[in-house]
């Protein structure tokens, strides 16, 4: 298996200047992920699962440690890389699915979904075709495709969000509770899409409230609870 990500001694805390205090999120986390591998992050609330995902995506700045990513351009430490390189990798190789849609005013659902393809240079008509296909797959009604998602319900927004995040295959996909607020059909469509991406070689790291949703995809579980941080291989997964 090709190694996609190698995390070494990653530590993250937050300095809250107005309180004059520090809060440790996680310390000295190390693990690696191969192409096509699905790693589930486990741990109680506050164990740092989402913080770890955001640190890998560089929405959070790690305090120490390395995030060695095997990009198409060679090995790069995401913890130290220049912002412009990170922006480029996000457009081309690293995807992030959150529970929250970042909708811009006056941008239609189909345009929101097509945007990652447009940024990757796909022509407008093709991008729109594919966007509609994924909106349909995740169960967004056609009459909403041209509407502005800012007014959608939480569940509908989440579907738009998924269609956007999963429209193009990535080398590394970070999943932060993507099944939250989804109905059963959309959950099934999500699992099918993730399975396809996985077999296509996408490495995935995910946080799920109900890991049962993606049980069949999980290769490894990493427990981030500080005292019990362990790594468990698929055969004896307990979720």
């Amino acid at each position, binding site marked *: 298996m090709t190694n996609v990500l190698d995390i070494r001694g990653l530590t993250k805390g*937050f*300095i*809250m*200047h*107005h309180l004059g205090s520090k809060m440790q999120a996680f310390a000295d986390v190390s693990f690696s992920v191969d192409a096509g591998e699905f790693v589930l992050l486990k741990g109680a609330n506050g164990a740092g699962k989402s913080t770890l995902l*955001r640190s890998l995506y*560089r*929405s*959070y*700045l790690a305090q120490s440690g390395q995030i060695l990513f095997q*990009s198409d*351009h*060679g090995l*790069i430490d995401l913890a130290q*890389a*220049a*912002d*412009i*390189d*990170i*922006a*480029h*990798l996000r457009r081309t190789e690293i995807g992030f699915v959150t529970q929250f849609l970042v909708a*811009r*005013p*006056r*941008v239609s659902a189909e345009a929101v979904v097509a*945007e990652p393809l*447009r*940024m990757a240079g796909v022509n407008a008509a093709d991008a729109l075709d594919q966007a509609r296909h994924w909106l349909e797959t995740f169960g967004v009604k056609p009459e909403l495709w041209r509407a502005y998602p800012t007014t959608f319900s939480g569940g509908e927004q989440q579907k738009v969000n998924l269609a956007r995040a999963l429209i193009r295959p990535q080398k590394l996909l970070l999943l932060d509770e993507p099944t939250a607020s989804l109905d059963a059909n959309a959950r099934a469509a999500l699992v099918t899409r993730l399975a396809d991406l996985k077999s296509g070689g996408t490495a995935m790291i995910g946080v799920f409230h109900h890991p049962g949703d993606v049980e069949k995809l999980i290769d490894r579980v990493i427990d981030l609870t500080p005292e019990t941080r362990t790594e468990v291989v698929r055969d004896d997964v307990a979720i």
Partner: protein
Amino acid sequence: MTRVMDAPRIVTTKPLVVVRNVDKNYGSVQALRQVSALVYPGEVLGIVGESGSGKSTLLRMMNLEETPDSGSYTLDLSDVSGNLFELDRFARRMLCATRIGIVYQNPHHGLLMRHSSSGNVAERLLVAGERSFATLRAKAKSALAASEFPLERLDAPPIELSGGMQQRVQLAKAIALEPALLLLDEPTTGLDVSVQALVLDTLKRLQQERQITMVIVSHDLGVIRTVADRVMVMRRGEVVEAGLVDQIFQDPQHAYTQQLVHAKL
């Protein structure tokens, strides 16, 4: 802390804008202190900070309206070279008229209030040497359309228009010559919310469709969050922090940035 100057390893394109070590004093007031910034082609750099932080001064320098006490400014364009701060007045004017567009906070700034809206845009094209009436009219119309200006009002003078409409004429004027760099100084301040959304949407579309590089100054963090790819935070003439837009908003490092982000409604 100044990631804004970090050398990329993957992205091989050269930055379009390189501002290095700019200092500016007005009497005893230090307006800018060792300010540096890089802007890559096609990206939107947001600059935030309180009043008096130096953000608008920096923008005016990029528009060559001001000269710093020291520092350099280069644009990576085939027909432009050297430190732009050293250009004479005429060369500056030509460069700003043809390659750099600017939209000011005051909607009617720089507009001829009693000339037609299309005439205001055409005037910019005239400066660049365009003389054919048909071409002037067609280009002005297309720039106004791209700025979502209602085309049935092409001949209306700005004095008869609302602030939001005037802002669109300014934007059309700024993009008429397809500038390499578009500078925006508080472009939505003073506009009502629905017009703000329209202006932001237009900017985002221009960035995506025409890959225009932009620098936007605003004290409205919502505006910056919506349009910027990277953000520079300024305070008292210095850059205190710079980073990707989501990092600045989700994990601000500097005490001042935390204060700014936490104060957002």
